[in-house]
Structures are given as C-alpha cells and as structure tokens.
C-alpha cells in the first residue's frame, strides 16, 4: 500500500532522505548546545530562589508556581491567555456551520440507518454521576491554586471536562440545552476581560499594571494571596469556556443531526 502511494508522490522518499541529511548537523548542534547547558540537578536559578524566598513572606502564598503565574509574571500569563482566546476564536471561525444546505434534502432514510447505537445505561449513569464530582474538583482546583498545586489553567480544563461528560454520557440534547453557544462565548470573554481589567485596576490605584492591590489574608486561606485568587478565577473562566466552545464546535454537526432525526 505504501509503495503505490509513494509512486503517487515521488517527493516522499526525497523528503525523508533530506530529513536524514539535515538531521546529522542537527544532532551535532544539539550536542554542542547540551554541553553548554547548566548541569541538570545543580539548580542554578537565582530568580527562582528569590521568588521561593519571597512568595510566602510577601504574598502569603504557599504554591510558588501560582504566585509566579498570577502575580510576579502575571503579564506573561495575560499574553498566554490571549493566545488561547485567539486560538478558540480561530476554531470557531473555521468550523462555523455554513448556511448553504445541500440541494437534495431527502436523506432521512440514510440517517436512520447510520444512527449511533444508544449509550448503555451503565455508561450513562456513571457519566452523569461523575459530572458533579468533576465539577466540584475543578472548582476546588481553581480556587485553591495559591495553596496547593493547581490554579485557573488546570481547574478550567477540569470544569470543561465535567461539561463534556454530559455529552459523553450520551445525552447530546441535554448537552445542547446546557451549552447555548452565545452564553458560553460571553462566559469565556468575560473571563478574559476580567483578567485585563484587574490589570488596569492596578494602574488606577497608582501602582503598576497587574499589581497585587487587595489586602493579603492570613497564610493558607482562600483569600491569602490578594488578587491572585481573582486572577485565577478569571483564568479558570476563560479556559473552561474556551474548551467547552472547542468541543461544541467540533460536535455541533452531530448535535444538529440528532435533534433533526429524533
């Protein structure tokens, strides 16, 4: 099979040969770079050590990674969020449903024959039962990112997973009812906007962009990090909304079909 395909595309073998020709110098370059790298395990990181020392003292935050993401390097996270926002928008644009319907519309009989078999009761019950647990876990991860591993990015994906469970449990109509696209879009956009507005709030208060301006609570409470928790929630909103939108735009066609045929 691969042979006649190669005939179809005579460039394939040439490409592979070219890859191996280019690969040899690449290995040399990588080896040269590797020798110059700091030895793994030595941990030469002045900035990292500084932040580890400062996070608990200055910000009352025990998870240093979250403190970096949503405070010390919060501006970088804003950039990452905009990449995420732009990607989701790109998917929505590319996969948007075209209005033009095929001229012949008598395909009802074909649809009947290839409709998916119904989801088994066990999968349905387990999936629906998992939704609440997953949702709670995701919200916990979002709101406790400054204390334990987690934060808006991971928690947002977990919350979105809970939503997708609704679809995986076989209830496509319930999924469609629970996720009206404009509402999810607004939900995501508000998350992105809230992050930027929290940044400007620092400017309005006479501090720098994204400055931590709320009073710090006692160590190891939900409000211990000042604005960190708010930024984490804003990020969680955006990530969760973004992933739900991605899944929705990939399954939209199936949803419309099921709704039409039943």
């Amino acid at each position, binding site marked *: 099979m691969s042979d006649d395909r190669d005939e179809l595309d005579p460039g394939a073998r040439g490409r592979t040969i070219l890859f191996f020709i280019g690969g040899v110098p690449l290995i040399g370059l990588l080896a040269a770079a590797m020798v110059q790298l700091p030895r793994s395990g030595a941990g030469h990181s002045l900035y990292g050590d500084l932040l580890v020392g400062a996070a608990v003292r200055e910000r009352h935050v025990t998870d240093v990674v979250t403190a970096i993401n949503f405070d010390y390097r919060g501006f970088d996270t804003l950039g990452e969020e905009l990449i995420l926002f732009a990607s989701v928008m790109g998917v929505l644009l590319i996969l948007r449903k075209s209005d033009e319907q095929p001229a012949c519309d008598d*395909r009802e009989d074909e649809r009947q024959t290839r409709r998916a078999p119904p989801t088994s009761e066990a999968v349905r019950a387990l999936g629906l039962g998992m939704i609440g647990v997953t949702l709670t876990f995701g919200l916990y991860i979002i709101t406790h990112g400054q204390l334990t591993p987690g934060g808006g990015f991971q928690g947002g994906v977990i919350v979105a997973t809970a939503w997708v469970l609704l679809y995986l449990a076989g209830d496509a109509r319930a999924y469609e009812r629970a996720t009206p696209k404009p509402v999810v879009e607004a939900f995501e956009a508000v998350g992105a906007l809230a992050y930027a507005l929290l940044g400007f709030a620092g400017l309005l208060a006479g501090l720098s962009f994204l400055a931590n301006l709320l009073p710090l609570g006692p160590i190891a409470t939900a409000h211990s990090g000042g604005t960190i928790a708010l930024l984490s929630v804003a990020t969680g909103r955006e990530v969760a909304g973004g992933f739900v939108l991605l899944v929705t735009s990939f399954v939209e066609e199936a949803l419309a079909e099921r709704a039409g045929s039943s």
Partner: protein
Amino acid sequence: MTLDAETVLQLGALGALVVVGPVVVLTRAPRAQVIAFTCYGLLFGLACLAFQAPDVALAQFVVGAVALPILVLLTLARMRRHQEEADATRARLKKERQG
C-alpha cells in the same frame, strides 16, 4: 555508583518516555495513535511528578490524557461522518443515473 530511589524513579519515567515516544510516531492509524498518545500523556505526567512538578503534572494529566484525545477523536468522528455522507450521496447519484 549508587542511585537513590528518586533517581531510579526519574530514570524509569524518562525511559518510559523514550520507549513510548517513538510508538506514538510509528502508529500511523489515527485511532490507534490516539490511544498511544494518551498513554504517553499519562507517562509524561508521572515524569513531571518524579521531577517534583505537581502543578505541571496536573495540567499534563487533564490535557494530555483527557482534553487533547477527546478533541482528536471528535475530529476523526467528524471526518468519518463527512465521508459517510459523501459516500451515500455518490451511491444515490449512481442509482439515479442507472434507474
């Protein structure tokens, strides 16, 4: 040379990545490749844990083992649906031409 338990754990995790990485590339059938990639994502999360990065491990578990495979499977399902529709249309046109 003596190795402590942590080093053994790290070397084991990296060794698993060394083996499963090429498997992901060499599995050419997309549906099978998704399974291989999910295994790879889980192993990568374990490697993150071995290197004392629990935040990254959490992100890797939810993205590499849940979100990305779901998106790829939905893509494949959508492509197959399109293929079936095109086949059905072609079959009907053929039938009409004959009939």
